[in-house]
């Protein structure tokens, strides 16, 4: 009985992240447009875009290798697996023990690895530009994320995300300096990793400012759809991660009943909407940075996360 319940939670979680991810992106676009006093596209526009892309024929550059055609599926798969292991509305995921937070970080690293390779595959200067800059950002963002994981793991005494979320729900957490630092660092990493303003602009096609868009420039049709869906999933993943660690309220505990799960789902949708609105608000108020300012920005996250880890090593209370 327990197995069936856990399995159904796991499967519904996998489907939920997949179905909600485009909606989140649509919501952020809509909110951003309204903040700028524009009408903006429909809320469901990302779904229509994906369907349209999937049905078109894919145009592949003549110099592209097989990697170019395989990479979108690998990127999608690794991101999806990572996203389905982050608790969204319940902590009792069946497969949560198969990969901990370090593994989730590394799965996102795999997706980035293949995305950067795909950017270089056609052999254009823009692709190389995007890959090179993306990897440069990653050299700072990834250690920052690992340090955040360390901080959380040292507080919850486990790198399993379900255990961490369960611990955050318990009254033993309290207010901690290290948690505050980790939160700021995680938000910065999330902005950088999802190619949002001020690090990158998701809606730019101005050549010299592109990073993420430069890598996927040559993609079209179903391949592009897969990549778009993966970036939407990744955004959802980071918001879920922040939500389940720092705002875990409403998360259904292990072996809870149906009503707890329903509350969890409602709370999750609420958290997504709140985070999406905050992101849209943030993006409308800041300007994009120069590329070589970005390392300083992500470097702040790395330093804060390292500081948080050091605090945890120094004292159990902070």
């Amino acid at each position, binding site marked *: 009985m327990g197995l069936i319940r856990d399995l159904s939670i796991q499967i519904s979680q996998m489907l939920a992240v997949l179905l909600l991810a485009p909606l989140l992106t649509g919501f952020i676009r809509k909110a951003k447009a309204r903040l700028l006093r524009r009408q903006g596209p429909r809320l469901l526009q990302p779904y229509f875009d994906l369907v349209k892309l999937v049905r078109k*024929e*894919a*145009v*592949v*550059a*003549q*110099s592209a*290798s097989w*990697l170019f055609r395989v990479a979108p*599926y*690998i990127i999608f*798969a*690794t991101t999806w*697996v990572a996203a389905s292991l982050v608790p969204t509305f319940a902590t009792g995921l069946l*497969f949560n023990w*198969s*990969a*901990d937070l*370090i*593994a989730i970080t*590394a799965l996102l*690293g*795999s997706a980035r*690895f293949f995305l950067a*390779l795909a950017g*270089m*595959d*056609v*052999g*254009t200067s*823009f*692709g*190389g530009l995007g*890959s*090179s800059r993306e*990897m*440069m950002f*990653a*050299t700072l963002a*990834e*250690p920052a994320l*690992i*340090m955040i994981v*360390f901080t959380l793991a*040292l507080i919850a*005494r*486990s*790198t399993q995300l379900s*255990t961490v979320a369960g611990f955050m729900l318990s009254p033993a957490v309290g207010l901690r300096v290290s948690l505050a630092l980790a939160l700021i660092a995680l938000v910065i990493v999330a902005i950088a990793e999802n190619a949002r303003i001020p690090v990158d602009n998701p809606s730019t*096609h101005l050549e010299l400012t592109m990073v993420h868009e430069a890598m996927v*420039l*040559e993609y079209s049709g*179903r391949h592009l*759809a897969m990549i778009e869906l993966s970036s939407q999933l990744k955004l959802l993943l980071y918001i879920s991660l922040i939500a389940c660690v720092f705002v875990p309220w409403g998360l259904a505990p292990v072996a809870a009943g149906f009503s707890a799960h329903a509350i969890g789902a409602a709370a999750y949708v609420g958290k997504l909407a709140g985070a999406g609105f905050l992101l849209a608000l943030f993006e409308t108020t800041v300007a994009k940075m120069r*590329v070589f300012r970005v390392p300083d920005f992500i470097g702040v996250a*790395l330093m804060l996360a*390292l500081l948080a880890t050091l605090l*945890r*090593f*120094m004292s159990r209370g902070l």
Partner: protein
Amino acid sequence: MPPAGFLLGDAALLALGAMAIVLGRGRSASAFLYSGALIVSLLLFGAALSRLVTAAEPSTLVLPIGLPWVGAHFRIDALASFFLSVVNFGAASASLYALGYGRREHEPSRVLPFFPAFLAGMNLVLIADDAYSFLVSWEFMSLASWALVMAHHREDENLRAGLVYIVMASIGTFALLLAFGLLAGPGGHYAFAQMRADAPSPLVAATVLGLVLVGAGSKAGLVPLHVWLPLAHPAAPSHVSALMSGVMTKVAVYGFIRVVFDLLGPIDWWWGIPVMVVGAATAVIGVLFALVQTDLKRVLAYSTIENIGVVFVALGLSLVFMANGFSVAAALAMTAALFHVLNHALFKSLLFFGAGAVLTSTGERDMGKLGGLLNLMPATGLFMLVGCAAISALPPLNGFVSEWLVFQAILLSPSLLSWALKLLIPAAGAMLALAAALAGACFVRAFGIAFLGRPRSSAAENAVEVDRFSLTAMGALAVLCLLAGIFPGQVIDALTPVVRDLTGANLVSQSAIPWVSIAPVAESRSSYNGLLVFFFIGMSALLAAYVVHRLASRAIRRAPAWDCGFPDASPLTQYSPDSFSQPIRRVYGNFAFRATERLDMPPPGELRPARFKVEMVDIAWEVFYAPVIGGVNRLATWFNRMQFLTIRQYLSLVFGALVFLLLVLASWA
């Protein structure tokens, strides 16, 4: 198989080397020799692995050769069996690879005799059980590899590499000699068994630790003793580069573990600190330099330095935990170190084989002249991709598992009491995370530039796939990278006897955990399941591809690249290795390589080309190497004068020396 069997195998290898001199040049000589080496290494590998898996008791052998009254002691315990397995597996794969690769060697008589001798040397180091045979084997290994580095001695660069290598190898051996001298004590107990029995005083032990860090560290490539490594490893033929980087550095790690964990007696609390500091610095500096190299083999050599750094951080953690009485944590760190040793042997050999295949088929090592090889060499490209992903620690491959284990060990350290350690260990963890991220960038760059994009030269355009022997060797290693990643529990269990010998504790048996997960400390803390991650990624990728192809469109149209509407005609407008690493060079440039960029832009109207030049300096070279080399040169010039004295001066020198020695002898008593 007892030590006698291993000695027999080594003798067979030496005999093969001698035969190679007799057989001389010719294609059959190469095939005969490499297949011989392959068979012997496979036998030795099988014997060592069976000893490791069955957790055989240590067995010893004393031969009446070597120093009088001491004899030559040989012993195989769990630690030696593990390293024997790694070394002989690497040797077997290199021999298999060389069956194809070695045919194109243009100076076979400079390679063939030394190759089996090199293998025998490494094997002998691992089974030696007294200082004398250890040092003789160590030096034999160094000299044989030096001869292989000098195989293509007509290139100036190789000559320089050979010189630096032999100087560094001598310094390393000298440091080890002093270390063993201190361990042997005034009584001259050269056998390891006696060294193990009597613990040296703290001061002596600390000195020995420093000397071993220099001796074994210089061979392994620890910063700042690393500078010879990226010169020497790429200079050798590629299968030898693979052996030097993938395997010989492991023999150095073995030397360190043998002396520090086995012979040196009780561990002081601070021993782990220098080891960890040096390891973390090595990891970051190694990978930063790997990121800015344009020579494919040199990228791999610098990345070896990084991986050795990771191993030493784990060893340092293990020392710290042992000294503080956390034996399970020490066992975890040691498991991580040994697992990484195995992983690095697998993927670094694979990558060097791939670089060798590229070299064979294009004649180029400069990445700026490669590109687009994935279309022309699909199998090599696929195996290289696996190797690059594994070394970048991507799940579900093996590199991730050892990194995960190191991180888990770091997370156990807040329970330590020392404040210095509490500050140091998180910093080391941050350095490791940084090194891992940089390694990802490094191998995206290496694979992306060499194998993807459009060919940057006609050599790359006309590349063809390499022979079947080379492909088999690479394929086997790639499969093993995957297997070790998805069944890590089995590897950890096989390492248990080694870890128990060294740290006195062992992790819980991983095979007892359901669903082939690994949970090194306790299930409640953290677990990882490579098989399931692999299965999920594979299933979701296939499912997505199936759904999209089935329900939506499967049409493909080939067209010219779009590139924002301005497709560039020349392949030279692609990102080059230098331009790829430019952002990283600018971010990390100042503190790591003191990069200076000089741009010479002619004013409008002038016809000379614009030039852009980047210069990078390895600080270690200036601080440590230049003085040593300068000193050796000055000393040599000074001694050179001794050659041209008159007979009277020689006689007076001899007389003076005799009087001096007699005086010393007289005052001694």
